[in-house]
């Protein structure tokens, strides 16, 4: 089975590091395709790398996550985007989903939370 390529969009280095660690722990399934530290870069990287899934932070400089989701979805409506954020109000959640995000993972989260969410998303896509 081919590993799923994941683009990590996250401005905090320690978060990026941790996500990599977590995805490596689930090493058989996932592969980090690349990183982006802001929305703009995320869109560019998406076009360049064409990953299977994007983990998207919302609060970022240059271009925020919501805007980046919109751009990516515009480019590829089939893009799979998992929002991973510390913002947790229903309004923020709603805004992200409306922009085109497929799921919403709230910080802080455990490795189990993350892998459950990824599996759920990919399964949904395969179906």
């Amino acid at each position, binding site marked *: 089975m081919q590993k799923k390529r994941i683009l990590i969009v996250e401005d905090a280095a*320690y*978060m990026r590091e941790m996500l990599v660690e977590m995805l490596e722990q689930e090493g058989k399934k996932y592969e980090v395709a690349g990183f982006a530290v802001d929305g703009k870069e995320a869109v560019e990287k998406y076009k360049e790398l064409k990953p299977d899934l994007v983990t998207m932070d919302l609060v970022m400089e240059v271009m925020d996550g919501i805007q980046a989701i919109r751009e990516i979805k515009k480019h590829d409506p089939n893009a799979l985007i998992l929002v991973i954020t*510390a913002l947790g109000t229903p309004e923020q959640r709603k805004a992200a989903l409306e922009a085109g995000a497929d799921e919403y993972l709230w910080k*802080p*989260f455990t*490795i189990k939370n*993350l892998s459950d969410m990824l599996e759920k998303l990919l399964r949904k896509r395969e179906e």
Partner: protein
Amino acid sequence: MEKSGVKELNHRFLILFFAVLACAILTFYFASKGETRVYTHLFYIPILLAGVWYRKKAIYIALFLSFFYIIVTYPWTHPSDVFARSTILVAVAYVLGFVSEKRAKGEEKLKETKYYLDDIIKSSADAIVVVDMEGIVRSWNKAAEDYMGYTADEVIGTSNKKFFADPEEAERIMEIALRAGELKNYRTTVLNKDKKPVHINMSAALLKDKNGAPVGTVRVSRDVTKEMELEKKIKEERDNLNLILESMADGVYIVSKDYKVEFMNKVLIDEFGDQVGGICYKMFHDREEPCPLCKNTEVMKEKTMRWEWHSRRKNKTYDLIETPLKNIDGTISKLTIFRDISKRKQMEEELKEAKERYMVIFEHALTALCVIEEDKKVSLVNKEFETLSGYSREEIEGKKWTEFIAEEDLERVNKYHDERKKGGAPACCVFKFVSRNGEIKHVNTCIEPILDAKRCIASLLDITELKMKEDDLRETCEKLAELDKMKRDFLNVAYHEMRSPLAPIVGYASLLERFKLTDRGRKYIHNIEKCARQLEKMINRMLELARIDSRKVELILEEFSIPGVVWEVVKSLEPEAKKKKQKISIVIPEIEIQADKLKTVAIFTNLISNAIKYTLEKGIINVMIEDRGEDIRVCVTDTGIGIPEEHLPMIFERFYMVDTSLTRKSGSLGLGLSIVKEYVKLHGGRVWATSELEKGSKFFFTMPKRQK
């Protein structure tokens, strides 16, 4: 008369002429026969006639006859005899003529008098009628013809009875005339030829013959129908006047110039008693001479007087109008109209008093007051207005209201003023008031129209200080709002920034669990995770409260089963309870409600976890829900330490902690109950608690089953 006179003359003259001729022929005849003596006697006949008819002229006939006789009888008679006889003839004629002349003169005089009387009678404007004792009309003059319609020829010789409306009247008049010898100003009614009644005024005198026996009456009468009508009219008018005077609400009385009361109307009689016929000053005032205030003299000079009289006796004030009233006989009486104005006077007094009272209020009011005339001139100000404006009232006099208004506010205030006059516009208007030396004061004014909206009264309140305070306050408010926004922004950022580091803590802890660890290592990891979760919970609560404060939280309604929710909550909290060996008992009927499920879960979680937290080991926690129809009532009972009574009202307040020491048992920021309160409030319910120290607490809340 003249014609009949001529006829009479000719007639007599012929008789006389033939008598003289007959005498001459007879004398000639008998003289020719020698018989002279006897026949001279014949001559006396014409002389006698002439004497009677022509008086002194008879002498000429006597002379003629004597001459004729002398000539005829001369041949046969002695001349002396003839002469003697002739002389006798002439003498007889003369005597006869003289006597006749004298008598004729008396008759003429009588006749003249008669003509004169006739003329008077004829030309008299009064009817003059002579009636004899039998009631037969003997004389009827022109005036009688005029008003009776009968001519003299028609009535002379007929009975006068038919003239009277009352047939017995004729006899009655005669009887009075006989008894009294005359009749004066007797009023009766007669019928004229057209049988119409004519009112007459009659005077009559008894006519007597030379022996003093009554022979008839002469009656002088006048048609007084018009006068009667006039009198009737006057009487009617007088009656009407009296009726008016009687029915007047004012008192009316009339006194003659010598102070005699001639008339009082009912009002006055009711007030003073009937004094008609009395002397006014005696009756009304108990005085012996006219009152000093009496206006009789002036009224008698035909002046109308008006004055007020205060009766000390009655303690009443009257408004009197006194006016001259001309009587039929030309004298003047005084007509007085009395109006009781005591009440009015009293009201005037009261009004005056009220005015004074209001003036005091006006003057000493703590608001500046001024009266604005129609031309916008300020006519009256109070002390406070002087203080406000800095001008004395003498200086203000003549100033225009608009002089006190700052130019930029003038149009607005004028518009407000005009609209207030029409009864519209808001009650108050704030503008810049220009006081002495151009000092600006902020005033709140209220303009109220008075007296047909021509004038207005303006009340002005100096709100300069207030305005400054208001400005300060507004500034403070703005600052506070800014601060609030900053706080919210800060909290949002802080929330995000506080949560973000939690992510690697929790994340790495979960990662570490995947490694082979010692039991101790696993325990450490577990503790790290537990603390991180607790920190997360507190941050969440703070965020939620901040959101509630900025009204960002809305209910997401759905139908769900209350027992289901409670079971879920209890199940999630059971491990904790089990640790403390507590028992949770639940008494809930099956209830479906429409509410925000997540928030309902939060409410129950908070209350039950609190109960677990504060209940000692082996304690019992009770959850009871009551279906009350419209809503449900939830009661969570614990057997914990209880809450001191003084803290009860505050436990739902934010950050309120019963025990503020850092050494308190369970870590909490005291946000749980305030979130419960806010969520219950959002649903339209109520939350409260009762407690007994050392025994436990009861937390209640209600929640409607349906949201409106």
